């Protein structure tokens, strides 16, 4: 799924790295606990979270994730946005809550921790 499609489906605001919107993600992970996210390996995944601190960006960076969606109207700090820009991670913010945001992406074909066609 294209990151621009995620933006549309979640009616999200783009906070940084707009030029990454054309990139694709193939899976998603929703959590406020960073070690739960780190337990899950997938290339090109999107992270949905309600947690706001710089470790969210570092976690995504360690996992080679290229997009983070902040749910329930949470906004990253300027320091977080700077860190995301350094790594080219697209930051999106949506008013939707975690459950709804994950459900919308899932029902539109973005799977969780599962290999497609296998």
């Amino acid at each position, binding site marked *: 799924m294209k990151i621009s499609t995620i933006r549309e489906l979640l009616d999200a605001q783009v906070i940084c790295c707009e030029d990454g919107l054309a990139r694709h993600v193939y899976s998603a992970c929703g959590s*406020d*606990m*960073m*070690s*739960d996210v*780190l*337990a899950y*390996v997938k290339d090109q995944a999107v992270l949905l*979270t309600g*947690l706001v*601190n*710089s*470790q*969210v960006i*570092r*976690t995504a*960076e*360690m*996992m*080679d994730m290229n997009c983070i969606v902040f749910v329930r109207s949470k906004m990253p700090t300027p*320091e977080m946005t700077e860190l995301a820009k350094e790594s080219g991670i697209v930051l999106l913010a949506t008013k939707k809550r975690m459950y709804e945001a994950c459900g919308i992406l899932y029902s539109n074909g973005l799977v969780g921790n599962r290999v497609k066609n296998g």
Partner: protein
Amino acid sequence: MAEALNFHFIVDGEDFTSAGQASVQVKKNLRQLGLPSEIIRRVSIAMYEGEINMVIHAGGGTADVNVTEDYVEILLKDNGPGIKDVEQAMQEGFSTATDSIRSLGFGAGMGLPNMKRYTDFMKIDSVLGKGTDITMRVNIE
């Protein structure tokens, strides 16, 4: 690569916001060395979990990374409280983290299991009241 390469870091235990910077730097260094991205990811995740643990549980410490022809080795040392029961600490979901740590997004009890999962070798030497030394290795190939 004829000689081993070493990187040394001091992990500041007072500053949660900057925790993880050493791992970010190691990731950059390993990319410059041209290691496969899967190896780099495993090293960075394991080191990041260890680095965060040193900050939230042990008041900081040091991290050393050695890159040899055969493996990447991560050595973490702290002078924190030590781990009472290592076997228990290795269980998924076991955590002594407080609510304030949980509100920062840590304390799921997944860090040590993740370190084990992503590395080929892991050894914990911990002495109560003295500190904890962790050695991890990720084989190249």
